[in-house]
């Protein structure tokens, strides 16, 4: 039994960690946050050059042909440095949807350029405030045209194309639309985490095509979201672990009442509790990665469990980060808010925690019935 990543996968992770340590200090994230640039273009090129963007893309389409376990460990490192690049929307969602359901022509058209970093994809599901549910979308996809409004769309502002969850005569399906097409408008929105901008996409009879065959679209959408949830959970895990490390280090160095703040039991016990919750989330994330790579039957439950644990712990770790830093944690100058913002952004994208809890119970009780 080996409920852990292999030595090869750990090597992939170390390589990613080393590259990001050099090329993605938190100042890179801050630069995007404080400027108009929507993402760190140099870092994105580096990710492409290292093959990360095509990790799971088959070699025939220019990818590395690796598995989800390799992508999961890269995601953890991407999350650890709060990389301000459209990794989630393009890699976990748009690319995965194409790999899972695209026709050979569609794959040939998009995947090689996705792997090379020449184009960026996005996944459009949400339609404003409230519960995000694939089976309740109003956006229409009929006879090759798309109409409706999608907001917020993570990475929508920088994407070249989008995979859109829409309703047609056959029910829910995924539509593939180029964002420079006629009838498409892309507007920026004001973001809680400007280091990972979202956008509003409006479609007015925009030309679009069905992604792959017209099959059970809802099941496909759920599968894409579950996979992305697992990979995002690794980003959240990486972010939580980094927030924890920074906080721990700060508390060891800062003195109060003549001793390191980290020596007070009120602090020690809270750090111990937080560490336990991060490790617990790690176990749940590993389970999600296992299910995604070789335990498809358990993916529904495993993805929800990983997602909920990782969302909760990243948010909690960043709340504790600010609290334990004291006043400076509340300043723009310190990096705490970069983590605080990212945690909430990732917890919101792909649907809220309460929504995932409903999904988890549906899946648990269905499995039992």
């Amino acid at each position, binding site marked *: 039994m080996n409920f*852990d990543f292999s030595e090869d996968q750990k090597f992939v992770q170390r390589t990613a960690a080393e590259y990001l340590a050099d090329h993605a200090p938190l100042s890179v994230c801050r630069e995007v946050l404080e400027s108009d640039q929507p993402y760190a273009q140099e870092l994105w090129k580096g990710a492409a050059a290292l093959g990360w963007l095509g990790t799971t893309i088959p070699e025939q389409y220019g990818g590395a042909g690796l598995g989800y376990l390799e992508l999961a460990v890269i995601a953890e490192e991407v999350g650890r440095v709060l990389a301000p690049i459209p990794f989630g929307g393009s890699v976990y969602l748009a690319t995965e949807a194409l790999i899972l359901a695209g026709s050979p022509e569609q794959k040939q058209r998009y995947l090689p350029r996705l792997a090379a970093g020449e184009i960026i994809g996005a996944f459009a599901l949400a339609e404003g405030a409230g519960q995000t549910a694939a089976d309740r979308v109003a956006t229409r996809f009929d006879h090759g045209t798309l109409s409706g409004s999608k907001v917020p769309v993570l990475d929508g502002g920088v994407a070249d194309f989008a995979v859109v969850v829409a309703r047609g005569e056959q029910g829910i399906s995924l539509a593939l639309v180029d964002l420079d097409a006629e009838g498409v408008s892309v507007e920026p929105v004001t973001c809680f985490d400007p280091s990972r901008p979202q956008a509003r996409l409006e479609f007015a009879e925009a030309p679009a095509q069905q992604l792959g065959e017209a099959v059970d679209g809802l099941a496909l959408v759920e599968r894409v979201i579950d996979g992305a949830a697992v990979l995002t959970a690794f980003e959240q895990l990486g972010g939580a672990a980094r927030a924890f490390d920074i906080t721990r280090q700060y508390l060891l160095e800062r003195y109060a009442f003549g001793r390191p703040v980290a020596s007070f039991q009120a602090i020690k016990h809270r750090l111990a509790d937080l560490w336990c919750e991060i490790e617990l989330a790690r176990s749940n994330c590993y389970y999600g990665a296992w299910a995604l790579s070789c335990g498809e039957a358990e993916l529904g439950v495993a993805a929800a469990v990983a997602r909920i644990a990782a969302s909760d712990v990243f948010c909690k770790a960043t709340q504790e980060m600010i609290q334990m830093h004291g006043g400076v944690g509340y300043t723009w100058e310190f990096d705490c808010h970069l983590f605080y913002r990212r945690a909430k952004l990732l917890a919101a994208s792909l649907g809220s925690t309460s929504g995932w809890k409903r999904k988890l119970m549906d899946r648990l009780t269905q499995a039992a019935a």
Partner: protein
Amino acid sequence: MDFSDTPEEAAFRVQARTWLETNATPRTTEGSEYESLGERIGEAELAAAKGWQKKKADAGWACLHWPRAFGGRDATPIQTVIWSQEEARFKTPPNIYLIGHGMAGPTLMIHGSAEQQQRWLPRMLSGEEVWCQLFSEPSAGSDLAGLRTSAVRDGDYWVVNGQKIWTTGAQFCDWGILVARHDPGLAKHSGLTYFVVDMRSPGIEIRPITQIDGGQGFNEVFFTDVRIPDSNRIGEVGEGWRVAITTLMNERATVGTLSGDAFGSADLIDLAARLEVDGAPALANAAVREKIASFHVIAKGVELTGRRIVSDLSQGKMPGPEASLMKLLGARLIQDMAAYAMDLQGEAGAMVGVDDAAHQGRWQYRYLAISGFRIAGGTDEVLRNIIAERVLGLPADVRADKGMAFRDIPRGG
């Protein structure tokens, strides 16, 4: 990522299962029954436990993790886990040997003389003699090194006076491992010496403790002028703390018996399907569902963390103090789930009768018993300190009694 056995592990599992199948009866009901932290062992259970241990010893299935030189099997940690998993599938008597096989035995192997090892280990292994632990005292729990039971040298003997507490199975045990203070003039940790005591010695009085849930697994043990031969001393005079640490570290070797299954939410889902909220099954209620989902995430996380520990063992790595998190989070989870299960039962949540309460009252009993799990074997607070200091490398607590002679340490009421 692979949950399945390696070929070697699979072969060992088959070997273990084959022996168990011809020598024991499979367990029929799944383990959702209530389990107390301590139950009094009667004559019949004692005889059954000794019989089962003898049977295993004769066939070479006793104390797998012990070296062959001491009658064990030199089993790897993962083999010990596999054996525990397989044995758990069968109806077996209560395990009265945890202290002996898991803690006292390994301590004797390291700190005992060849003569002491020869004298005690074989009959410990075969189960003829049962061992208990005499460490905790009424005023020395988390602060174990603050113990006060005294041992005064008298020729070839030591004379012991004082009181021990939380001793499991003291009534039927043959031997006890004892830490006592030989010199209160020394600093706290320096004045301790470690002994093996014959539990039938004159001057030992044993009184059972009735627990919060009515069980009587533990005892108080009183020592009045109990004479222990110096040949029963383990390690040098004044080395008691170091020897005791060996014993306590070996508590972790029993990690193989940890099972995440006990933390599952399936039992709670079953309860919610039987009860009603607003005229519909509680399981259909949105608030109830969200609550159970939250429990499930933690339950699954604890279970999977257990699997990560077993996986480490399989890979030849020893788990560190990280294992503490399973107890810390697992016990709180069970307490929270039991509290919620009682809440779901409405006014009937305050009934415990097998006939009256839902699920035969097991949530109520669980709620009582779990409060002890959060204290036994390291309180939540001690576990947090262990994690903070040994895993996270945070500074040790400031100790008010550091360097003081034991007799000068303030001791309150």
